[in-house]
């Protein structure tokens, strides 16, 4: 790159040196030309690196490799090995996982049939035909025989009095008492059936836990929790039925109290009329 400008400049310089007149001018021109060519055209000479420079550079690279990179890589290896050992021996040790699944299976064997047997013990205690029928219906966990339950209830507790036998207020209260009793009994039949399904769900979740691995367990716990929410909702349905029933019971007592007050007033009126007539 420097040859062309050098040749041009040097040619010009040579031409001027050869044609200039006078020694002083020539000397001045020579010095000026020398300076221009030296400063402008000739690049500064690169200093060659001696063998010592290369050795230093290689030593520096080796120092970086051996004292910085290699210890870090060894440290990463150590950490990962420790991490792997930690996970395999402390977090997810295979023997412990196997022990847990074995415990689940052992508990299934120990408790499932036992508890199912306890729950299924026959509790029926009625001795007469109508109560026996009703008892059987209220404990059968079926939801397709509500008509039969109403019939059986009426056979056991009889129907509400006829309009000729009782006033409308009494008939209404009796009808509502019966209605809420039947509502609760029907709700309980549905709840019993739902309880069976819940037990079935609990059994299947427990069986799955017996074959679970740590990674699949969150699915089981999540579905168990959502089943718990459902179970709470069913408990609330039963509580709501109980609230209605209890409310009707004290409302009934209160109704009697109101009617007592009314009868007292009527009685007082009769007595006053009677005393006035006498």
């Amino acid at each position: 790159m420097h040859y062309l400008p050098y040749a041009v400049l040097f040619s010009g310089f040579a031409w001027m040196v050869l044609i200039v007149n006078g020694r002083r001018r020539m000397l001045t021109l020579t010095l000026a030309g020398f300076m221009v060519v030296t400063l402008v055209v000739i690049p500064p000479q690169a200093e060659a690196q001696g063998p010592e420079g290369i050795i230093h550079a290689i030593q520096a690279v080796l120092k970086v490799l051996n004292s910085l990179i290699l210890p870090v890589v060894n440290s990463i290896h150590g950490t990962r090995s420790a991490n792997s050992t930690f996970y395999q021996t402390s977090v997810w040790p295979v023997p412990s996982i196997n022990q847990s699944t074995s415990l689940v299976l052992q508990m299934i064997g120990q408790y499932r049939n036992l508890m199912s047997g306890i729950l299924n013990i026959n509790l029926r205690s009625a001795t007469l035909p109508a109560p026996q029928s009703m008892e059987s219906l209220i404990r059968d966990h079926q939801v397709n025989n509500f008509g039969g339950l109403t019939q059986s209830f009426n056979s056991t507790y009889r129907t509400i009095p006829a309009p000729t036998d009782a006033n409308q207020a009494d008939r209404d209260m009796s009808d509502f008492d019966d209605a809420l009793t039947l509502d609760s009994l029907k709700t309980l039949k549905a709840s019993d059936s739902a309880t069976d399904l819940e037990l079935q769900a609990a059994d299947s979740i427990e069986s799955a836990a017996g074959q679970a691995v740590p990674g699949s367990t969150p699915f089981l716990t999540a579905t168990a929790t959502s089943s718990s929410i459902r179970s709470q909702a069913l408990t609330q349905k039963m509580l709501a039925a109980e609230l209605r029933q209890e409310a009707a019971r004290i409302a009934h007592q209160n109704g009697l109290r109101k009617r007592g007050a009314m009868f007292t007033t009527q009685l007082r009126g009769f007595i006053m009329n009677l005393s006035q007539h006498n």
Partner: protein
Amino acid sequence: MTSISAALKRSNSWVWSRRLRIILLFVVLVLTAPWPARGQALSPCCAILAAGLSSIANSLKTIASSLNAILGVDQGMLRFEQTVVWPTGAITQAQALVGSQQGIFTRIQALIHIPVNSATQPNPQQLEMTLLSRNPGLIPQTSSNYTALYGPVPTTTDASPQVRDLVDMTDAAAQDAMKRAIQIDALSDLEIQAASQINQSIQTAAPGSAPIIEAQADAWLVRANAYTQAATADLMRLRAIDLANSSADIKMGATNTTNLRQQLMNLLQHN
């Protein structure tokens, strides 16, 4: 020929007359001409460089061996995680179980929506319909349905203030409980709906995201417990009012007995 030799003579004469200048130009040329850089092919640097590179290569081999060991550990860990911690087969099996739970959800939802109403007379039917409606919008009409069935609080001419207070409080507790029952029914419907949604989302979750859904389900469980407690609280209030009524009956009986005794004494004194 003559002209050439004459020209040569003139040239020599011109060069000779400018010999000093030509020497000067030659010196300047020698001093300033750019010379090509020398190659290092035969330099001793190459040997040093080769030895250095060899040392670097050895160090790199050591590092590669360490990296290889790290790779081995990572592969072992990956194998462990894929076969022991998160085996795809077991995860698919768990997701299938969640799917089967969804079937149970559907059956339970159908069970709790079976109609259970049983009243036969108009007033009881109306109150029963409101109570079993699971519709919070019908809560305000509970009181009128209740009064239609159980009657209003006795008037001041029909009962003493004490009896009227007792009757009103008992009616209030009964109506509150009935209204709470409607609330709880509506809330439990929503809980079952939410539980079903949660269960559906578990089916499509990954092992890493399932705990997030589990946390949400836990939060819902806490909420459900709170609703159960609210319902239990109303049940306890009802029973407390019932107990208070029993106590009030004794108190009123005592007062009535005292009044009766006083009136009898007055009657005897008049006679």
